[in-house]
């Protein structure tokens, strides 16, 4: 009886914390397309439960610089970056700090391979064009999992 109740209680506590607390989550979005950066901002800023602090970068080099200078809870990274490509940026971030969760963004195309992205250490792959709900669900899934493991 007791044994069954403990995880249940923990889960309830967790849910309560998620729902009630106004959390601040720092997100870095790296994408060469301005409209994607704007959309991410617009979609995540509409969230009432969580406060997202979003930093954006249009190039891989600038993105990598930002990561070195600040601490982020999540990185949204485009797969098809000009110059240093998305997979290469992913590898460099993971090398620098393995614990940062990264969600890759990619167009629905033959170029995007789920297993390629996951095997290089990304948490998930979000296919463009995405809806507000899809982006939110992917992001919140990351932190849900994060909480339950932590």
């Amino acid at each position, binding site marked *: 009886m007791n044994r069954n109740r403990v*995880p249940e209680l923990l*889960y309830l506590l967790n849910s309560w914390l998620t729902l009630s607390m106004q959390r601040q989550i720092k997100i870095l979005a790296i994408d060469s*397309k301005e*409209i*994607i950066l*704007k*959309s991410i901002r*617009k*979609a995540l800023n*509409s969230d009432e439960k969580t406060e997202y602090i979003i930093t954006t970068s249009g190039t891989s080099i600038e993105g990598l610089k930002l990561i070195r200078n600040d601490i982020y809870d999540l990185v949204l990274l485009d797969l*098809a970056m000009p110059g240093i490509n998305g997979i290469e940026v992913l590898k460099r971030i993971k090398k620098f700090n393995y614990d940062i*969760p990264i969600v890759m963004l990619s*167009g*629905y*195309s*033959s*170029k995007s*391979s*789920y*297993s390629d992205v*996951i*095997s290089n*250490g990304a*948490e*998930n792959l979000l*296919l*463009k*064009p*995405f*809806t*507000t*709900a*899809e*982006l939110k*669900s992917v992001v919140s*899934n*990351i932190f*849900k*999992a*994060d909480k*339950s*493991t932590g």
Partner: protein
Amino acid sequence: MSIPDKLKHINISTRISILLGLVIILTMGVFSTLSLIKQENDSIEIIKNNSNQLCATIEKILRFSMLENRRNEITKALKDIVGKEGIRTVRILNHEGLIKYSSKQSDINQQISQSNPRCTGCHDNKDNMLVSSTKNFVNYRIDKQKNLVYNFLPIYNAHSCYTSACHSSGEMSSSINLKPTNGLQTFHYHDSSQTVLGFIEIEVSTEKIASNLGHTRSQLILITIIIALLASILTYFSIRTLVGKPVKNLVEGTRRVAKGNLKQEIPPGKAELGELSHSFNLMQKQLLTTQSQLIESEKLASIGKLADEIAYEISNPLTGIIVFSENLSKDSGEDKIKDYKVIHTEALRIREIVRNILTITKRELLEFKDTNVNEVINHSISIVNKLSNFQNIQIVNRLQKSVPNISANSGLLDQVFLNLLLISSESMSNGGIINISTNYVKDNGELDIIFSDTGKGIPEEILQKLSASNNSAGLSNTERTGISLAVCKNIIEMHKGSFSIESKPGSGTSILIKLLVNS
């Protein structure tokens, strides 16, 4: 260089016809020569027999004249015989070799030597002895240069010859002088101890036979040449029409194909070459089909590539449209919300259209190879095991030890299994068990793949929409599960397999995939 090398350049019909002509000439030549020799021998044999009989007849006829010693009558008779059936000369010689009578006046009283073939036929050359065996007596002589056959017949002593009174005439005395007598004066003309008194000789000409044979020979040569020529010409033309023409057609056909013209067929022949031309035409047809398929697939490939590019480029602005219209529809007034929702719905529709196009073009471009499903499943499991949301989930792997390979695109199957695992994980945010099993059913050649979980299950409305059509445009709500399942179903159907879901909300989901095993 050598002759055979030069011969190689002569075409086959000429070669075979020349060879056939030569063979005919050689065979007929040998055959005619042999038969001519036989004919000549036979003719001479006949002449020999005839003249032998003639000699005997002459002897019988003239016996009486000889007994009575009527010399003029004998000479006249001999002259009468000459000229008939090639008989040139008839002579009567005594045993000593003196020509007593002859149809030719100049021959009379000529003496022939002992070495003369007339004597050696019966006598040994040296001592005037008889040849040991009568079998070996030769009663003829052939002079091939003069075309003459000599035939001799001995005149044997008879009772009438040494007892006849006929020989007692005056002329007898001259004859007696030539005969060795033992001094006894008798009435006998011939000695009774003598066996052979003399011989009759007939000289027969074989000129006519020789000229006949010569005539036959030249006729045979002519016929041989004509037959050889006719056979060669016939062979030449028949080979040209039966072999040369179809071969020429084939050669022209291969040249045409080499130049890229695949539409013109070569005329069909018969027998072996006909079969060759038939299979050539078949090959050409298949080449044409392959070529057009190649062109078609190249076209599709470029269309697919273009579609891919477009989809990729569209994805960015479309994200903006979707996200911003969603935002506007939330914040705006009642009247505007409807309009923004239209924009949002249509933008989502564009997204589905693009995704569908890509799925179709991808299907045409996909490469299907022999694939081991167990390996693909293990790969998918190894990927999801790295994900943080699988930490509370236990994956039970119940794969059949050895499953046969199937023709599939491993990348796509991987996508299906990953999707199914992710869907399961999303329905089990508090942890659970995913069972994966494979089972090969030998009877119907199907490979069953079963995914089952202990999650929340899949909502009824998604299941209904999924079974209604494979068009995921209907699933325009934001549920990722629906879209993912539609994609999975689509991929399995691409592999000519079946995809079925059993799910009750709250009691887990079970997905059965059936794939056909290569025959």
